[in-house]
């Protein structure tokens, strides 16, 4: 009996296998012959620019899907960028953890190397300092967008490029404190219990840059001494009782707890609009020690939708996409080129602090950034709180 059943089972398997593969062949035969001849998918390995039409066609074949990570809608106008991209190309976007940090983004790529599922990000937006790790771990795929030549800060091979930058500003509640003009003002007694940062130095790049910028102001622009002198500066701010160790966000600024906050311009200007005069905020770029904080874009080496990822960057790095950043008060990296060609609307320029302030902005190389990061986070507690 067992022999018979075994036989019949094997037979059944054989039959069904033949039937199944026949059905499979029949099913995919027309598609298999049609797709490769009509659209030869563009090459991804060279990193060369893919003409927009070819890219759009490839995205159709790919399924018109994109997975992004760490793009908060109120950050640098990403909400509008995402919406316009979706409607322009009819692509559905799966947004992973909007509040993730740069290391979380890299971790998401690492964790999903083998997976093409919905948890694997296609595109990332990380602090420039993180590009070193990302490249060393082989997490990025190279691509040069069509506007490549006008991007001022980028990896020569195309593994990453800056998309936008901000400078640190003083965000001051007008009635509460006099508006400072430079870093040294923050040591004055009228700022007692009034000066705050928008992040935690041990975790946030923004706060590390706050320390660095104040040091750059003190050192007269000497980058090698900036980190050390910045810590010294904040030690003095803390000893004077001026530093409040609370992480300033829109709520705390609105409530008045942090009358003078150091924050990226795109965040402080967005706060000024959001709070709409209650309280009235003054946004100032300091006279010295103006440090630019660029963010870098890239494509995951394991992207499930590599063509959609490239199309995303073509859009974001185009004049249209770059202007959307500016609408969210983030300075697009192609700002100078676009102003020269007159494609930035005047009404947008009017809402920003004077362009001269941005001319003073100092860009750091990735190496300088990392050295500053390391020195400042390792010594922050020791120097500033004396522990």
């Amino acid at each position, binding site marked *: 009996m067992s022999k018979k059943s075994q036989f019949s089972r094997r037979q059944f398997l054989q039959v069904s296998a033949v039937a199944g593969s026949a059905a499979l062949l029949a099913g995919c035969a027309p598609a298999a012959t049609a797709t490769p001849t009509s659209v030869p998918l563009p090459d991804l390995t060279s990193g060369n620019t893919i003409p927009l039409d070819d890219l759009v066609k490839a995205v159709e074949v790919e399924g018109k899907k994109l997975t992004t990570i760490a793009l908060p809608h109120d950050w640098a106008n990403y909400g509008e960028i995402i919406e316009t991209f979706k409607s322009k190309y009819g692509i559905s976007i799966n947004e992973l953890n909007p509040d993730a940090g*740069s290391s*979380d983004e890299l971790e998401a790529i690492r964790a999903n190397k083998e997976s093409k599922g919905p948890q694997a990000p296609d595109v990332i937006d990380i602090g420039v300092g993180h590009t070193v790790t990302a490249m060393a771990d082989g997490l990025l795929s190279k691509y040069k967008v069509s506007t490549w030549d006008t991007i001022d800060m980028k990896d020569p091979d195309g593994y990453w490029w800056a998309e936008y930058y901000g400078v640190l500003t003083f965000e001051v509640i007008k009635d509460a404190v006099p508006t400072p003009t430079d870093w040294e003002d923050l040591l004055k007694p009228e700022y007692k219990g009034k000066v705050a940062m928008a992040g*935690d130095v041990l975790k946030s790049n923004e706060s*590390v840059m706050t320390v660095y910028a104040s040091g750059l102001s003190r050192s007269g622009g000497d980058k090698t001494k900036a980190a050390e002198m910045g810590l010294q500066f904040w030690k003095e701010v803390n000893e004077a009782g001026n530093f409040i160790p*609370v*992480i300033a966000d829109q709520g705390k600024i609105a409530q008045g*707890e942090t009358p003078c906050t150091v924050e990226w311009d795109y965040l402080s200007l967005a706060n000024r609009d959001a709070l709409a005069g209650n309280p009235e905020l003054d946004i100032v770029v300091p006279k010295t020690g103006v440090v630019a904080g660029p963010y870098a874009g890239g494509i995951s080496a394991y992207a499930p939708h590599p063509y959609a990822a490239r199309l995303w960057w073509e859009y974001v790095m185009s004049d249209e996409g770059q202007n959307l950043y500016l609408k969210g008060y983030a300075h697009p990296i192609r700002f100078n080129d676009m102003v020269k060609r007159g494609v930035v609307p005047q009404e947008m320029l009017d809402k920003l602090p004077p362009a001269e302030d941005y001319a003073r902005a100092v860009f750091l190389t990735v190496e300088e950034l990392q050295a500053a990061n390391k020195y400042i986070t*390792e010594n922050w507690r020791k120097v500033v709180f004396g*522990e």
Partner: protein
Amino acid sequence: MSEQSITRQNQGSAPSARSSRPKFTWDWVGLAPFFLFAIAFLLLPSLSIFIRSFQAPDGSFTFDNIIAIFQGRDFINAYQTSLSVSIITSLGGGIFGFLLAYAVIMGGLPRWARSFMLTFSGVASNFAGVPLAFAFIATMGNAGLVTRLIESIFNTDIHAAGFTIYSIWGLSIVYMYFQFPLMVLIMAPALDGLRKEWREACENLGGTEIHYWRYIALPILMPTILGTMILLFGNAFGAYATAYAFSGSFINLVSIVIGAQIQGDVLYNPGLGNALALGMILIMSICMTGYVAMSRRAARWLQ
């Protein structure tokens, strides 16, 4: 021995041997979810922390993480701060919470006051994290309502006099907000269990109030009091979100240092983070052992 017991059992239950044979029961199925939960969310994570505490970034075995804790003044300092905040708030929350619970249960308050207090405690003991931190900043912070009221009524700048909410004491006050009601919540049923007759018996035998508390009420309540204080201690010791939302890494707690090690951009060293967590587990284990010993001693009075 085992053979004997088996035969005895077989003999004893001979008539109904088939039905009562302890061969296989489905009883354990009821407990399975609990064990699965305990394994997945307690045992495995602890094991993973233990293993990774001894791992270098490349995965090889090392003692460096443990050694680093004792070398960094930061880390020792963080344990001290965490311990002080936990001890302050578990003692403070414990004592005041006990008194409040006593007032509510034994104080002869009207029924509605009692149920109001218990409901409030239930809500407040779960109020933590970002909203709690913001609530305290908004009331007692530099521009807080209470701060401003005091300043305008007494016409003084209390910050000039050195007052700040951003300190260990400030954080302890914030923690007390959920510690205190938790103590009330757990003590209330225990106090309910104290019978009037015991006090009457004590008084009839000539005992005073002190005798009653010393020999009757406290010994009965002691296991609950100790257990709850341990709970409060653990509650404060492991808290992260509230402290972080309150003042970032300004107050150097172990949980915050761990956060910086595993999430931070530059300090990133998960091995060290795990070693620090192992230290916390060790401290909690010592506390739990102490609790078991003490409650066993206390329970002796009941027998």
